[in-house]
């Protein structure tokens, strides 16, 4: 009660701040542990004996890791580009004119890849590729990734379009710009941050995906997460920590850029 004078009592709930501190510690300590141990000199990952970047050099000189990383980058690049292109067109289409009847159905379908459990998608996609007789490899992985990348790319672009004053397009028409010039001079420049942000998010989820990739990848088309899974299965080594830390770093950088872009006003 003595505190009532100095604090806004309706907003003060005792213990909240302590809980929040523990909560964020819980979120971040495991991640930090992986990063910290990746610099551990010792072979036995959990006994700290000294700082070393050897494992990073070992990983970066491991041709299997490099091949897996290259595969991951190829898949993520193509999947995110195709998905972003399709998502941009879809978002522009959904923004055309007034609301229409099939709007909810289309929005639900575009969100479907987010709602269906990954394992189900993985199984279905595997069956599909085997049934139509396509060799499992980078092509099948990219195709499968493109599907679940679409909603991740679509949502930021759609949000951007929805936040755009429809009068801006009309103003361009009013100032003698035809459809094409309005698109190039007004719609696209304003949409661009959303597209970029969506593409980055799609890139990240493709890069990080394990379950679906695990099912539809064939021999020689191992991606980085699938490779890491194999490493973990055979035993915990500091090399796993180093690859994992690198993967975390890439995601962290990309998601930060993506969020900064999408927050930008213009």
């Amino acid at each position: 009660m003595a505190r009532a004078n100095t604090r806004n009592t309706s907003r003060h709930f005792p213990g909240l701040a302590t809980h929040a501190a523990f909560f964020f510690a819980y979120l971040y300590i495991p991640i930090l542990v992986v990063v910290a141990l990746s610099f551990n000199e010792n072979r036995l990952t959990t006994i700290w004996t000294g700082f070393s970047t050897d494992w990073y050099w070992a990983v970066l000189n491991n041709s299997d890791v490099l091949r897996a990383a290259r595969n991951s980058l190829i898949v993520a690049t193509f999947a995110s580009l195709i998905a972003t292109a399709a998502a941009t067109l879809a978002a522009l289409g959904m923004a055309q004119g007034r609301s229409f009847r099939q709007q909810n159905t289309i929005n639900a379908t575009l969100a479907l890849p987010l709602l269906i459990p990954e394992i189900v998608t993985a199984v279905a996609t595997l069956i599909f590729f085997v049934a139509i007789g396509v060799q499992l490899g980078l092509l099948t992985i990219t195709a499968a990734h493109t599907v679940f990348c679409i909603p991740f790319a679509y949502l930021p672009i759609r949000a951007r379009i929805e936040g755009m004053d429809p009068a801006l397009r009309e103003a361009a028409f009013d100032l003698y710009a035809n459809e094409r010039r309005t698109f190039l001079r007004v719609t696209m420049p304003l949409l661009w941050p959303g597209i970029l942000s969506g593409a980055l998010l799609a890139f990240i989820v493709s890069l990080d995906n394990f379950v679906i990739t695990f099912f539809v990848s064939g021999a020689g088309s191992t991606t980085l997460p699938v490779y890491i899974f194999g490493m973990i299965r055979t035993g915990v080594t500091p090399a796993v920590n180093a690859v994992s830390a690198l993967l975390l770093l890439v995601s962290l950088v990309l998601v930060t850029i993506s969020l900064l872009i999408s927050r930008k006003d213009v």
Partner: protein
Amino acid sequence: MNEAAAYHALRTATASASAEGAQTVTRNLIELREISKVFGSGRDEVRALETVSLNIREGEFFTLLGPSGCGKTTLLRLLAGFEQPTAGQILLDGTELGGLPPYRRPVNTVFQSYALFPHMSVAENVGFGLEMHGVPWERIRERVDEMLALVQLEGYARRKPAQLSGGQQQRVALARALANHPRVLLLDEPLSALDLKLRKEMQLELKRLQKETGLTFVFVTHDQEEALTMSDRVAVMNAGEVLQSGTPRAIYEDPDNRFVADFIGETNLIEATVDAVGEGGARFRLASNVVIDGSFREGLAEGREVTLALRPERAGLTAPADGIVQGEVINMVYFGTDTLYEVAIEEVGVLHVRTQNTAGGIGEIGVGDAVGVDFLTDAVRVLRD
């Protein structure tokens, strides 16, 4: 290029037409012929405009006034070309505009939200229309400077819209529209986002710009005071129809119907029966059997039930015996420059009377006092409905 050519053809045609018609003051620049606009269909059908016909004259400040949802903005969007009418014709200088997209119409719009392109500087915004026409850069730069001077924003050319205040953005929006020498400037509630003081300033500014440029302004507002003070002519709209159009004075002094009388200013509506129709005037019997004189309107027949309109400031209080009708003051509200009295009149209802608080007024009147209400024949107007 094709579009630019078409646009130029239309512009030169209209320019020469306006040169010929310059002497005739009442030449119609825009003619709306029986315009209807329906949105949606079936159960969702909304009839936004119902056979509206209007003429807007060259060089006038024309205002579309009405409550929200009355169709005034739809009408403006039809003129701009953002919507196509469901039925009817729009003529600009006698040329049909039907089917022309907005970018081929020699009209420009100032949007309610200003709609300044956030990724372009002030100068790029103002020069956008000229750039789309392929006007050479030096010419655009000159015109942009000219326009920024006109709206008193010299030195702001390189700023982004987000770095400007609401009032400044408003001026940029005006400059951007005016830069293209439009035949008509359309303004969609452009002042509604500004605070009261700035709004008053911009009202004067808009009037000044209209005088200086001599352009035809079509202005949309729901603010009756704004409409009365700024316009040459006003069209009052409700539920997709134009109820009355005319000068602000005509609309205020001689409202055609209940809606106009009620929407613009305060008014007393009195039910009566036509008692006699004479030369230039008529006699009306009130519910209390008192007979009063009022103005004449065509089509009045003896025995017809009518509604009379009487503006509170056109009535005065007198001693009971001197008034045309008698009643009792039931409430009074002091407004500084004037006082509003509510006078209950038996069988007729409550009349509002506004009197100026001048020195040597009508002495001390208080609640409960018996008074007479007096007015000139001229002040009593017959409504059509």
